[in-house]
């Protein structure tokens, strides 16, 4: 592929995106739509700048919750997956609980958590719960998916359980874990937003979702859109950051990072 065609391929989605924005702007202006029905992209941009103090504080609050929830999910999910891999009876006993938590929609659990916990803690727990499962299930699958011959080799050389875990099973599980991490990053944000909306309805909260609910009550539609833009950008940034982590961790050895020839 030539450099020009590679640049063209990358520029194409940006071009289409800009074209859509221009079409949106034109539609609003030509049809003279009022901002409370549909704000123009330019107005959303101006609102972002004008309300940046409020919105950035809320963005930081949401990102902080998302990051913390993701970190807790990684620590808890990996630790539990290691325990499950070492003792199968533990997996059989506790995995069903993890499945129940996963299949019950978080938006239905959030009000209950808000009864028992401080709103900020409840939001964190919600985000943690949705991010936890992909990490746990992917890492557990990875730890169980070890090459049989390599396992025989470790047995032949008298490796201890801990040596097998550290030198064989954890590295084998890395691509699975990183796949789970990418899913969990997006889910942590979704969990935080869903819980913030539930908490916002209960009267407190400073996250972006709360700003959306609040702006909705005030019919401040441009601010709703501005908060939405920030949430999308945050989601994309989280995905790209975790994608980069995955690329760095796997680039020298995993087939998913192999450049195809020709």
């Amino acid at each position, binding site marked *: 592929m030539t450099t020009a065609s590679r640049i063209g391929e990358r520029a194409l989605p940006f071009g289409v995106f800009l074209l859509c924005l221009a079409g949106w702007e034109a539609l609003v202006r030509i049809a003279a739509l009022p901002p409370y029905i549909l704000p123009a992209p330019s107005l959303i941009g101006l609102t972002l700048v004008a309300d940046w103090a409020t919105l950035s504080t809320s963005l930081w609050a949401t990102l902080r919750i998302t990051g913390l929830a993701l970190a807790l999910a990684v620590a808890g999910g990996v630790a539990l997956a290691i325990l499950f891999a070492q003792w199968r009876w533990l997996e059989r006993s506790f995995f069903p609980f993890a499945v129940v938590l996963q299949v019950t929609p978080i938006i239905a659990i959030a009000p209950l958590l808000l009864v028992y916990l401080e709103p900020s803690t409840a939001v964190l727990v919600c985000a943690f719960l949705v991010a936890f499962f992909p990490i746990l299930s992917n890492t557990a699958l990875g730890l169980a998916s070890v090459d049989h011959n390599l396992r025989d080799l*470790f047995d032949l050389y008298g490796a201890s359980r801990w040596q097998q875990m550290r030198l064989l099973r954890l*590295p084998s599980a890395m691509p699975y874990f990183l796949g789970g991490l990418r899913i969990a990053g997006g889910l942590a944000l979704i969990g935080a937003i869903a819980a913030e909306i539930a908490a916002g309805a209960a009267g407190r909260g400073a996250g972006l979702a709360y700003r959306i609910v609040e702006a909705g009550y005030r019919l401040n539609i441009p601010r709703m859109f501005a908060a939405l833009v920030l949430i999308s950008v945050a989601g994309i940034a989280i995905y790209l950051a975790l994608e980069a982590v995955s690329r760095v961790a796997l680039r*020298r050895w995993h087939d998913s990072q192999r450049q195809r020839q020709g």
Partner: protein
Amino acid sequence: MISQPGPSPLLTLRGVDKSFPNGVTALAGLDLEVREGEFLSLLGPSGCGKSTALRLIAGLAAPDAGQIDWRGGERPEIGFVFQDATLMPWASVFENVWLPLRLRGQSRDEAAPRILDALGRVGLGDFAKAFPRELSGGMKMRVSIARALVLRPALLLMDEPFAALDEITRLRLNRDLLALQADLGATILFVTHSVYESVYLSSRIVVFSQRPGRIVEDIAVAPPGPRDEEFRVSAFYVERCRAASHALEAVMSEGVAS
């Protein structure tokens, strides 16, 4: 040059049986003697229990009945080479070869001279930092052999190690393996279903029956000259290949009849 077999067996299998939970009987009453310093090939059709015998000897599985006796009563250091290279893809060539020593508690620095020596012996001295993905199939197999040799094992078990390689690589590795054995003096137990490979490499070939495996023929291969390219076209080589082929054909026809 092939080392001459020693007088006392390094290892003796007596009446070894092995069945699997799915009801398949892999081995029934296997008797086998492995002499020190010999290159012994286990030749037989697919699924006849050759690999199972190797796993039992390695201690990766236990026999249902019978005995595996080691000289001196203790299993010596064993190296194992699988059909595929079985390398850790996330680790460099150096780290892969380090593994057996690392599991015995040797640090990277302590192990380095032996690792580099083993890599040098298989012709990969310049590839210590490479990752398995960056190597060809033959090079990966060389890393696997270096890893098996790094503990300087008394017995090297090889389970069809060259079966998946192209012919040129296979011939080259056959030649290099003979040189390594002459150099190190290790006993090699080599599973194959290639008559030509077994005759070229071995000092002795045992032919397995169809499953459940037992030994039906014991063929000595002691050529008058060196094992070089001339050996592959010598009358002696052809004659031994014919003997092994006939034994294998008899085994196959026996299987068809039953």
